[in-house]
């Protein structure tokens, strides 16, 4: 086949010829059975290619990519301003797989934190405030007590309920129901997380990120997150995008701590021992408590 035949067939298949030229091209091509066959195949391929799903980085992949590149080329000596788009403010769903493992590891424990539904107060954190306090968010904070004597580790069907404790950091004890759908999908929902216990679970790797149950939870949470354009996730996004240590993050719950509205985060590192659980203020991402490095 001549080059001009190929170009003519391509142009006809692509629809780039005007009506007159297309008509003439079609007439010419119809005199050649191979050309007609090729035109069919070109059109078929183009149609199929249009259906190819978009190849896009997730927001988490994008943040990690940029962070890794910055680390490699060492361009940024000062704090990076991170300005997530509306889409980027969504929780990085890619993190759910591993993070959900942490959720499963946590069961009813001493209520040093009490949790309230996250979606209802999702707009309480201004992204700008989060950005302005990145430095504060990375400041070391006091460790939380273990309250180990009150820890109950329940099985899936045996979730314990610990008695409230009192401390300067004692929190309200009103529990909100878990996100709609979570219970139905996975059978249980963790509440009243104990940071130290969670930390110990991270270290001992008492979770299996590949378990089928995790994926069930992942699906449930992902659906919730998809519908939740949630500015409270900005703490997580900012922390992940400016941290060299953590590869994934997980907004576990919202609650109150020392009279402040807080967000409870789990940050996972490559090594479980490097992972941390952190309480960050909902209004400015300030780190208030941490269990982990």
């Amino acid at each position: 086949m001549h080059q001009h035949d190929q170009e003519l067939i391509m142009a006809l298949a692509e629809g780039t010829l005007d009506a007159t030229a297309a008509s003439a091209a079609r007439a010419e091509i119809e005199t050649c059975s191979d050309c007609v066959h090729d035109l069919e195949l070109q059109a078929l391929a183009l149609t199929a290619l249009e259906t190819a799903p978009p190849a896009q980085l997730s927001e988490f992949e994008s943040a990690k990519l940029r962070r890794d590149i910055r680390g490699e080329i060492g361009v940024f000596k000062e704090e990076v301003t991170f300005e997530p788009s509306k889409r980027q403010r969504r929780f990085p769903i890619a993190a759910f797989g591993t993070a959900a493992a942490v959720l499963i590891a946590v069961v009813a424990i001493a209520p040093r934190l009490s949790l309230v539904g996250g979606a209802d107060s999702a707009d309480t954190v201004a992204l700008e405030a989060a950005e302005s306090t990145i430095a504060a968010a990375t400041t070391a904070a006091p460790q939380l007590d273990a309250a180990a004597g009150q820890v109950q580790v329940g099985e899936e069907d045996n979730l314990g309920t610990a008695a409230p404790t009192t401390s300067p950091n004692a929190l309200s004890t009103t529990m909100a129901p878990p996100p709609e759908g979570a219970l139905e999908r996975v059978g249980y929902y963790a509440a009243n997380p104990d940071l130290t216990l969670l930390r110990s679970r991270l270290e001992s790797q008492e979770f299996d990120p590949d378990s089928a149950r995790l994926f069930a939870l992942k699906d449930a949470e992902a659906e919730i997150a998809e519908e939740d354009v949630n500015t409270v996730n900005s703490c997580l996004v900012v922390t992940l995008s400016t941290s060299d240590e953590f590869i994934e993050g997980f907004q576990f719950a919202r609650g109150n701590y020392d009279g402040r509205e807080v967000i409870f985060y789990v940050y996972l590192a490559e090594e479980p021992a490097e992972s941390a659980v952190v309480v960050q203020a909902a209004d400015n991402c300030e780190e208030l408590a941490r269990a982990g490095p």
Partner: protein
Amino acid sequence: MTHRATEDIDLIARYLQGDMGAFDELMAAHENRVFGICLRMLRDREAALDVTQETFLTVFRKADRYKAQAAFSTWLYRVTMNACYDYLRRTKRRRADALPEGFDPADPRAGDPLESAEVRPDIEAALGELAEEFRSAVVLVDLQGLAIDQTAEILGVPPGTVKSRVFRGRRRLAELLGNHSPPSRHQTDVDRPAPDSPPAPEHPESGTN
């Protein structure tokens, strides 16, 4: 020169002067496209992420060598393609499910290629079956929407060669999608060269402009 190209040149200059915002702007403008090329070429998300990172590292480390003789995106995508080829060469990966060359199992619904394509719409798998030289042309032109001339610059071949590769790549793609046995004249010129041996002229040095 397009607005994007002008903006890229400005961003590179700002980046070289230490403007940190330029880094993010360049990444935001190009990371998805680079990743898209890598993913289509490598068909492995993790590998595509690694090669995307490798590409940007090369570009940012050698940004001072960019002379704006070609559009930044052309340079970037050339580095991307070379990084993909390097990766494929390093790994010598062949998919376990690849069909033997020239073999298409019979499909009773394969009489009409259009109808068959609806039955077997696995465009990603079909793309993976294409020899690299055809896949790269189809990915850049048809999936990334690049012009023939820019693709020719990226691949380091004449525009006519790009057109021919796109034509033949699409034809082979359609045959794979439709499980449609090509006429004998097609078989010989489409299935070569072997997937892991891209022709040397297509590989301009990484990081040069």
